[in-house]
């Protein structure tokens, strides 16, 4: 089109915005539908099966334990190194426990868990559903009378909501352990004293803060993965794009949601 370039720019911005709003609406509807099937599927003769939930829980949760644990351990240790380095300027190395305890439980554990699960499972969900979409398996589900959201998304959502908080608590513990190990070497602080002090400074609110975030991240990863999968239309390339989008948007979504949540609850 050889129209006014300004006009075409404005129209492009408008179309992009419309597209984004449409996408947000689509994901909200997907969330509502997945919860609907989880809660009322039984009465509609289409229950979400417990077996499917556990199978997904193993895939997205249990199998993620090693990688999440390793990343958390390294992060805890890194926090201890940086903390001691920074606090030494004030001669307050002893306060490092407080810093590690709060930042790990409130921020790092949920964030690391969320991002790793988004990378591992968000992409896998998008690829699986996208492939099913192009090979007509989604259509096959529908003509058999199986609602695809009930069959594919609801068990995943339940599994994520179950395992992500658990992974987050595990991640907290492992990160604290990593920090404790470094402090034991650097400050000659016995590990049991480190943990005793940690539990002294932590209140239930800190742990709940981290776990609440992980529920939000669970919803974000599931919806962005599944939504991008369902919207695949153009063959193998489409599946690739959906997978990339699921990871990128999943990670960005988690970080933005984290910021908003922390802003609203921590001031």
């Amino acid at each position: 089109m050889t129209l006014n370039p300004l006009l075409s720019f404005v129209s492009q911005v408008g179309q992009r915005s419309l597209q984004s709003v449409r996408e947000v609406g689509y994901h909200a509807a997907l969330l509502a539908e997945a919860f609907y099937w989880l809660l009322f599927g039984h009465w509609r003769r289409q229950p979400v099966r417990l077996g499917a939930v556990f199978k997904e829980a193993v895939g997205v949760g249990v199998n993620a334990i090693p990688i999440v644990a390793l990343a958390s351990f390294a992060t805890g240790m890194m926090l201890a190194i940086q903390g001691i380095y920074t606090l030494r300027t004030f001669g307050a190395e002893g306060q490092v426990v407080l810093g590690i305890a709060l930042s790990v439980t409130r921020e790092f554990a949920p964030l690391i868990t969320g991002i790793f699960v988004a990378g591992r499972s968000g992409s896998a969900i998008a690829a699986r559903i996208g492939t099913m979409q192009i090979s007509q398996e989604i259509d096959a589900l529908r003509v058999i009378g199986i609602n695809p959201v009930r069959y594919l998304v609801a068990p995943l959502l339940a599994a994520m909501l179950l395992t992500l908080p658990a992974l987050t608590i595990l991640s907290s513990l492992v990160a604290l352990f990593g920090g404790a190990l470094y402090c034991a070497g650097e400050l000659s602080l016995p590990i049991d004293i480190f943990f005793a002090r940690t539990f002294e400074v932590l209140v239930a609110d800190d742990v709940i803060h981290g776990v609440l975030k992980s529920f939000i991240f669970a919803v974000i990863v599931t919806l962005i993965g599944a939504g991008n999968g369902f919207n695949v239309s153009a063959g193998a390339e489409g599946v690739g794009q959906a997978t990339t989008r699921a990871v990128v948007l999943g990670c960005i979504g988690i970080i933005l949601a984290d910021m908003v949540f922390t802003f609203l609850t921590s001031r």
Partner: protein
Amino acid sequence: MNSTDLAIDVSHLVTHYGSRKILDDISFQARQGEIMVIMGGSGSGKSTLLRHLLGLHQPTSGSIRLLGKDITQLSADEMYDLRKNMGVAFQGGALFNSMTVGENVELPLREHTRLDENTMRIMSRMKLEVVNLAGFENLMPSELSGGMIKRAALARAIVMDPRLLFFDEPSAGLDPVVSAELDELILILRDAMNMTIVVVTHELESAFKIADRITVLDQGRILMSDTVAAVRASTNERIQSLLNRTPRNEAINPDEYMERLTREIF
């Protein structure tokens, strides 16, 4: 034709894809126990018509009555019940890749019935026997050949003993022997179970062999919907060119041609 023994009754169906009209005023009927072949070239709208018959899309206007129920008006629950009486074999099979062949065939039973595990297994094996795939239930779909996938998909489609069976392109991508066997299988199913079978195909030979009646689609419209003999005897130019596989020789309108080439440029 008495309306009570009509298994499929489509009337004045109009559908759009975006703003493009795909199907225009489609009306045809099929009786219980009849094999109706929907024929047409690429882009004739036959796949779209099938997807509407399956209730996968909502049409712009018109009605589609399957087994006496208008699927454009049904509630989700009523549609759910109707689907127990419908079987579909997709072109690529659409078997679930994460499940074995046996689990694929059992899935409709698992979702719609409360049969115990062993009964379901026996029923799925019976259907695999029907399609000559006995003993293959523990293989994964990726381990099957093209013809076997189509037959496994057929087994899954008929496992609930549906009254309506839809089969998309049964012979596409298969060698002549295997596709002849599938045609034979379709005839056996109709005779043994009195199913109404809708087959979408562009293969003439197969269409003439199995069809009781043929609906010919061209550019979103029905050219004719009649018996095999009537279709063969038709004097319609487009039908004859489909039957004799002659290329389209439509005169080009110079103004339209120019408009298409220069659209959105000037």
